[in-house]
């Protein structure tokens, strides 16, 4: 590195970043001329990473191929003919050697807003295939060389302290479960991803030893050991690369590499190894956090002593928060506002626990007395801080990200005295104003969510949202996540069309998590129904409307078309709704049979939510002739009833209706523009 221009690491990193992103978004190559500033290293990074990705892409296994064999399964993954595969089996397979039979399939795409994108998650790890196991027989256990270390780490600790320590020292979150949510809501979740913070505390503790320059070598030797014990997560690899470069420089007497330089070089190396790694959330968070620290901290002049320590700690937390905020909001839809404070309080505890925990990996129970109280303290802190206020926001568009970081640029320049503060704030206010303006037009659309063989339909009516049904109880989480991802903070109206686990089960979770203005229930709901009780407990007004009721909601109207009278049959007494969304009308038919359909007089509509998942009991000729829909939505999943029935599909086709079904397409959105 000697003699190279001072920005060569940054250039390599930026070039590598562009090279990794270009195959995904070719338009980004238009930005390449901006790299002229960095000269040769930038183009070297760009070309090398781009070629690495294009010439040696992740190989695609033969999808649909039947596989039988006796592979070793480790942490849910296995190898087959040179391909790494994710193993899918219910319940998940423990580590071991198995006799497996099944077939290969591509990873699943996101099926709902805010849903899990298996393809991106696996691609970031260099995996393109999923092994669906139909038959598994365990042959033998797989010895994990790390078991004895783990046992020594856990020795003598109470279960909660043990789980917290496993998360903190090894990044193993499996035991934490509910406590992990607390860490997330407290803004402390990054403590549970082993990264530079941990490595820093560990290396810092070693560097305190009076060993002269050999302490650098000792610290250097710890890096591979830690990688082996905690596993090569992207953040730990990043931190190890950077720390390795700096320690090597120190040992050789060259001085520490500049943080930004080392960061760029580490990014280049990691992307050269696997360009797809850029899709991984861990990698993104890790690099952004360090970038925030590296750009902000050196520009500050800290007062000496304890005051300086506190101020510096708070500034570091804020810098990390500022760089991660849009990414955290985009992925988790919540941002703990107390996070900088909680991190400041947690820092000394973590600084104590990480070296102690590492020693305990080697020494075992002898250290339990010293580890238990701080681990308890950390859990208490997470619990307390998780009660703090949260900022919630839905998914952020790429333009939104670009605007945010553009807005961050002028204050950063001002911090480094490259721009007067007044000018910087003025410039930064422009992207902020644009961001606010883009939030003003409210979307008008219908989302039929994919919740399996069930219905869940969200209507956004220009500033007010209506949720009609919510799938089975186990789907509630999915519905809530979709609401969060779409930026729905509260529901104006919640509708449960008829009692039945496949329509109202998931609503219990929704009522628990999301504020509701008014609940419309079918008259078939008794007072002792769990949903009614949950609504009463939250103080939500309940209405059991009949035909003829109508409301204005947002920029649209809801009209109740059924029931006119009660028959005693839950399906037949369901609510039929007509939504007027301005640009289009939608008829929602719950699980109503054909006898009821004939009595409705909806008039012409654009969108029809087909009754009863496309059962032959509904969607009659008479209804189609009257309503003349252009689009039919069917909420349907794998089912033994043969829904949607071929007769129904034929009738729809004969009327020229375009059919959209959630089992084939995932969530379906009917886009009706925007309202002011």
């Amino acid at each position, binding site marked *: 590195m000697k003699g190279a221009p001072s920005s060569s690491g940054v250039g390599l990193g930026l070039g590598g970043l562009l090279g990794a992103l270009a195959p995904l978004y070719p338009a980004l190559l238009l930005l390449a001329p901006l790299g002229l500033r960095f000269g040769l290293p930038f183009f070297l990074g760009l070309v090398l990473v781009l070629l690495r990705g294009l010439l040696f892409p992740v190989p695609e296994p033969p999808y649909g191929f039947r596989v039988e064999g006796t592979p070793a399964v480790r942490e849910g993954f296995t190898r087959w003919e040179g391909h790494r595969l994710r193993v899918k089996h219910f319940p998940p397979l423990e580590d071991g050697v198995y006799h497996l039979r099944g077939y290969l399939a591509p990873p699943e795409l996101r099926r709902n807003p805010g849903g899990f994108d298996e393809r991106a998650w696996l691609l970031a790890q260099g995996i393109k295939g999923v092994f669906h196991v139909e038959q598994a027989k365990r042959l033998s256990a797989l010895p994990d060389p790390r078991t004895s270390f783990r046992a020594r780490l856990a020795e003598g600790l109470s279960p909660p302290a043990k789980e917290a320590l496993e998360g903190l020292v090894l990044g193993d979150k499996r035991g934490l479960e509910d406590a992990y949510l607390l860490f997330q809501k407290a803004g402390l979740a990054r403590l549970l991803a082993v990264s530079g913070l941990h490595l820093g505390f560990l290396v810092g503790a070693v560097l305190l030893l009076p060993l002269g320059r050999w302490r650098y070598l000792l610290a250097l030797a710890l890096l591979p050991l830690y990688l082996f014990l905690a596993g090569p997560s992207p953040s730990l690899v990043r931190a190890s690369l950077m720390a390795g470069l700096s320690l090597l420089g120190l040992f050789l007497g060259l001085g520490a590499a500049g943080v930004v330089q080392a960061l760029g070089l580490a990014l280049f190396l990691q992307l050269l190894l696997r360009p797809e790694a850029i899709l991984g959330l861990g990698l993104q968070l890790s690099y952004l956090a360090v970038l925030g620290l590296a750009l902000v901290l050196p520009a500050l002049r800290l007062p000496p002593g304890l005051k300086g320590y506190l101020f510096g700690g708070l500034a570091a937390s804020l810098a990390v928060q500022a760089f991660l905020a849009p990414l955290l909001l985009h992925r988790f839809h919540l941002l703990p506002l107390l996070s900088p404070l909680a991190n400041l309080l947690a820092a000394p505890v973590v600084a104590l626990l990480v070296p102690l925990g590492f020693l305990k990996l080697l020494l075992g129970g002898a250290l339990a007395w010293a580890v238990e109280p701080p681990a308890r303290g950390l859990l208490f802190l997470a619990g307390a801080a998780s009660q703090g206020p949260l900022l919630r926001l839905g998914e952020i568009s790429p*333009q939104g990200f670009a605007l945010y970081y553009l807005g961050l640029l002028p204050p950063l320049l001002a911090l480094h005295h490259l721009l007067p503060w007044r000018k910087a704030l003025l410039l930064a206010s422009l992207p902020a104003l644009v961001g606010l303006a883009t939030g003003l037009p409210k979307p008008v659309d219908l989302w039929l969510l994919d919740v399996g063989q069930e219905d869940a339909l969200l209507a956004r009516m220009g500033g007010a949202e209506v949720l009609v049904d919510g799938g089975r109880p186990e789907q509630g989480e999915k519905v809530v996540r979709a609401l969060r991802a779409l930026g729905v903070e509260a529901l104006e109206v919640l509708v449960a069309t008829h009692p039945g686990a496949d329509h109202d089960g998931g609503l219990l979770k929704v009522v628990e998590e999301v504020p509701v203005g008014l609940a419309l229930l079918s008259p078939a709901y008794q007072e002792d129904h769990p949903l009614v009780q949950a609504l009463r407990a939250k103080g939500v007004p309940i209405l059991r409307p009949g035909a003829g009721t109508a409301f204005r909601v947002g920029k649209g109207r809801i009209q109740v078309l059924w029931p006119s009278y009660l028959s005693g049959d839950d399906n037949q007494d369901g609510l039929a709704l007509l939504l007027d969304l301005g640009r*289009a009308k939608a008829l929602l038919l719950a699980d109503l049979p054909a006898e009821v359909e004939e009595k409705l007089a909806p008039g012409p509509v654009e969108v029809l939510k087909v009754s009863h998942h496309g059962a032959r009991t509904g969607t009659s000729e008479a209804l189609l002739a009257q309503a003349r829909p252009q689009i039919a939505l069917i909420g349907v999943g794998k089912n033994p009833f043969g829904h949607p029935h071929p007769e129904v599909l034929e009738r729809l086709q004969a009327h020229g209706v375009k059919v959209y079904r959630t089992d084939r*397409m995932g*969530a*379906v*959105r009917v*886009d009706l523009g925007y309202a002011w």
Partner: protein
Amino acid sequence: MVLGYLLAVALLALLTLWPKLAPRPLPVRVEALAEASFTPPAPEPVSLNGASLEELEALPGIGPTLAQRIVEGRPYGTVEDLLKVKGIGPRTLERIRPYVRP
């Protein structure tokens, strides 16, 4: 530099606001999140003579009792021989035919 910054902000503003403000001729547009392109391969036929009780029970329309009777009625030369088993009629046979072999 400032000019470039202003240009970038203006460009992004245009990109985000235009789709929300532009009048659209089509009243209704539908988009699906994930278009399925993969259908899992047909399950391998189960051997009537070699399969375990569990494998037989996994067949459509076959419960523990019928599975037990199928095992007791071994061996089978053809799939049609299943009709000899008490409780399996032509309808059940047609349902499980794609999933079994002798």
